[in-house]
């Protein structure tokens, strides 16, 4: 097993170094772009080909994906060490990373669909990796939500086929009305925005390495990446819609994470709220800041998932946070890194997440996105703080219910992967800002003391109010727990209601129309009875003397007078 783990991880790091070399040495950093195009067909008037673009955006993203997948392969050497089919798992993970890289490198709809469809389908396989009925239902809702996005993208390709180019610079040539809207809708399904949010918490039925790679950094950010690449297709109306949906997603995810008990689902919902924030920034217009937040978030979220994975592994695969606790005493490195990644998520000063969040708040203040949306943004930041502190408390405090048995934490794969990801939570943002000048956007806010303290005070007061509300036990509290823990009833609507409704309707349809009308009436009994009845009647005429005479005279008359 160690050979396969080592081989896979080594190959990832090799390619990481390759792209790093490309970036620094060959001048991609200074603005040069490599474009390769492969024309496939000449039957149509337009350029039907796969077009690969290697600019600094693609390079940075590929770098981070490869680094995270290298660490995840080492981590899965630890987490799935008792697994029989480890080679199959690695094969699936490699297919996934290949699809992601194809998606990143080919900003052309024909090439992008290879990565896009591949992502959806391989993530289905990864979610159903543990062959249980729970994971099958999770996999189906994941794959079907992604399939809706595929259909939207198919319609975009259909629209683009009359617009002369499939690539991201097609806006210069011709662009239609619905393309931006459908593209945004497709990306929203992949990035689990409202109303397609129900699949992300369900997909936590996958093994934790899969969640680390897929549901924190790559799959959900694929939609954001497509919107960033094709952001010139978005008009004013689409940007407003995107702002509304992403705001609702942030609020939904933040509030649901405060009431969720499964540790992995809490982290998934925090991913959802951060992705909503990325989409919000795009809708305001600052694509570079959204991309910066994407990269930085990938690193510290992966670290958070790894820490949670370690806690789950050491408590015997128990994911329910009501039975966890006491990691502060038993798993010191894990708890420290979990604390760091949560602080980074909250935007604690000078951690990794601080820089990107500060830029986000700055760009929202200086743009014209409205007073109410700014208030909602601050509320979502407050909710982030709330659920982060809650999850830290759930994992650290020793409630006496701890199921952490005495394991030694000296598994070298685990420690190595944690140490490699560690710098992501702390240093990555500073490193990126120093390397890439576009990330150093500065927005000047004319601030007096009141405004600069306003956000902190609002956050603190909001959390205080929430704390007092939650600790009281009233009937309102009972209802709101149901409301929040099922994601504002979205998970019930998307999963059970729709599938049961559709399948029952189809079964009834099959029973009445398919088996009833078509098979029985048209094919078996109805038409046959009609024809047999008619021919019986004609035959009966011939057996009666009067009928026989009349029949033959009728035929005689017809023949004589028609010819």
């Amino acid at each position, binding site marked *: 097993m160690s050979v396969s783990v080592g081989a896979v991880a080594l190959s990832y790091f090799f390619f990481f170094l390759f792209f790093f070399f490309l970036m620094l040495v060959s001048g991609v950093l200074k603005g040069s772009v490599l474009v390769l195009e492969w024309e496939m067909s000449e039957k149509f008037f337009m350029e039907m080909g796969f077009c690969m673009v290697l600019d600094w955006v693609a390079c940075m993203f590929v770098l981070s994906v490869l680094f995270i997948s290298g660490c995840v392969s080492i981590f899965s050497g630890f987490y799935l060490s008792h697994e029989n089919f480890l080679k199959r798992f690695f094969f699936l993970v490699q297919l996934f990373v290949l699809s992601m890289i194809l998606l990143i490198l080919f900003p052309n709809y024909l090439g992008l669909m290879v990565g896009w469809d*591949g992502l959806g*389908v391989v993530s289905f396989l990864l979610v159903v990796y543990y*062959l249980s009925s729970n994971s099958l239902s999770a996999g189906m809702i994941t794959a079907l939500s992604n399939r809706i996005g595929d259909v939207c993208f*198919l319609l975009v390709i259909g629209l683009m086929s009359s617009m002369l180019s499939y690539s991201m610079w097609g806006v210069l040539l011709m662009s239609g009305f619905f393309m931006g809207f459908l593209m945004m809708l497709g990306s929203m399904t992949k990035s689990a925005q409202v109303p397609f949010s129900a699949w992300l918490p369900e997909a936590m039925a996958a093994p934790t390495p899969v969640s680390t790679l897929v549901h924190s950094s790559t799959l959900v950010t694929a939609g954001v990446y497509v919107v960033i690449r094709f952001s010139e297709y978005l008009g004013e109306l689409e940007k407003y819609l995107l702002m509304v949906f992403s705001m609702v997603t942030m609020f939904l995810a933040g509030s649901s994470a405060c009431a969720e008990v499964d540790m992995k689902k809490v982290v998934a919902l925090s991913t959802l709220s951060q992705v909503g924030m990325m989409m919000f920034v795009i809708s305001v217009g600052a694509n570079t800041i959204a991309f910066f937040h994407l990269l930085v978030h990938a690193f510290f979220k992966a670290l958070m998932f790894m820490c949670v994975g370690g806690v789950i592994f050491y408590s015997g695969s128990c994911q329910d946070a009501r039975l966890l606790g006491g990691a502060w005493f038993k798993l010191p490195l894990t708890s420290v890194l979990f604390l760091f990644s949560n602080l980074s998520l909250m935007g604690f000063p000078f951690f990794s997440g601080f820089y990107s969040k500060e830029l986000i708040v700055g760009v929202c203040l200086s743009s014209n996105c409205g007073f109410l949306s700014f208030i909602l943004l601050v509320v979502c930041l407050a909710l982030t703080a709330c659920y982060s502190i809650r999850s830290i408390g759930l994992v650290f405090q020793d409630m006496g219910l701890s199921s952490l048995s005495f394991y030694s934490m000296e598994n070298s794969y685990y420690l190595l992967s944690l140490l490699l990801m560690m710098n992501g939570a702390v240093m990555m943002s500073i490193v990126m800002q120093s390397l890439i000048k576009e990330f150093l956007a500065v927005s000047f806010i004319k601030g007096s003391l009141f405004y600069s303290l306003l956000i902190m005070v609002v956050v603190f007061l909001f959390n205080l109010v929430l704390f007092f509300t939650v600790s009281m036990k009233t009937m309102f509290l009972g209802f709101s727990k149901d409301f929040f823990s099922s994601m504002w009833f979205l998970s019930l609507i998307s999963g059970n209601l729709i599938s049961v409704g*559709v399948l029952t309707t189809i079964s009834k349809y099959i029973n009445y129309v398919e088996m009833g009308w078509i098979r029985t009436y048209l094919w078996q009994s109805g038409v046959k009875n009609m024809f047999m009845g008619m021919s019986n009647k004609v035959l009966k005429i011939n057996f009666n003397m009067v009928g026989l005479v009349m029949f033959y005279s009728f035929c005689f008359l017809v023949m004589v007078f028609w010819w």
Partner: protein
Amino acid sequence: MSCVLMLSVSCILWGLGMNEVGWLIMVCAVALLVVMMDCPFNFYILKSEWLGVDEMSVLMVLLCLLVSMMSLVSSTKEVKNGFVVLMSGWSVVEMVMFICLGSVLFFSVCSWMDFFFFFEFSLVPTFFLILKWGYQPERLQAAVFMLLYTVGSSLPLLMSLVYFWSHIKSDNMLLSKMVGGWKDFNMNWPWLIMSLSFLVKLPVYGAHAWLPKAHVEAPLSGSMLLAGVLLKFGGYGLIRLMWFSEVTNSTIVLFVLVFSLWGGVLSSGVCSCQSDLKSLIAYSSIGHMALSLSVLLSFYSVGKMACVCVLYSHGICSPILFSLAANSYEFCQSRSIMLSKGISRIFPVISGVWFFFCILNMGFPPSLNFFSEVYSVGGLLSLQWLLGLMGGLMCLMTGAYCLILYSLVNHGVVSSMVFKPGLNLSYRYLVSSVFGGVLLLGGTLCLDMFFV
């Protein structure tokens, strides 16, 4: 000509019993056929008094030969057993060869009467194939329905062809088109009645009930040939008929378009709730054929190209799905979804192949299925936005049932009733699957050849 010579040599060699050499020569014949595809686009060439060549007909002949080869390779049960079932001296191999011969000639002849003759000719060996080598007692009704309704609905076609033959005084497709075709008549209703035969064969949704029965009751090679080749007769006939009959884009044509598109959506929905593996794949055939018919009837040139592409890619993908279903029939002796599941723990390679062909069926890029689906939906979208939306809905439901099919066969634990130690599956299925997979994926690289 040399291609026909090589085919006949390979058949003689089979008759003499030298099987491997016969296969080799057949593969070379197919390769020669591919090389021959330098016919210019949009031209129809009369090679002789009997045969006419067009890029689409070469593509279809290629499809016939490939599907016959794959079906013979995969039918281990009938060919490789010690006991070979014979019907008055013919075995399954000869029946498949008859169907192949009839299909190849159907796609190559250039006179309308021969076209009609070979249209009905290939039904006879199929009828015998279902009757003699099928497995369940329901095959009697299935074979009778197939024969009766297909032949019955082609009677108006026969009558109209004879009438127009006597009117134009020539039978030849090219010649009668050059003389003027049928432009003297208002072709709306006559077109509908003439194409009724092709619509039943294709099949359009209302007239589709023969298809699941025939597919389910036929033996493996029969199912593969039915799904791969015989359904394409309808599409090919419709394309020729549209070219010849100069029908315009009127309300009748739009009626059939909407009817078939909505029927495709319905049959894709029906697919999700089937309890029989082969029946599921049969209903998926109806959905794909409905998509191709509707984009053909949009009268765009991309419509005809996408239609031919869908016919071709479905014609390769569906027989392989049938052979995989027969695979699972072999190890659990039942087609029901309750018993044949959980093979991802026992046969991982077969499970991988199932996955690959399920996602190919739903249109996974960069395969040929993806391009056919994209340009079908795109063509429909260019006609009317609502039709494009329905095409998208059909793609969604196709994705749904393909994933349902995969998870039904592969997920979960094998039922202990069927799992016996020492179970083994023939690798022949894998060979034909790999062959088909290479074709479908590699078809992207030479897309011009398939977009006719």
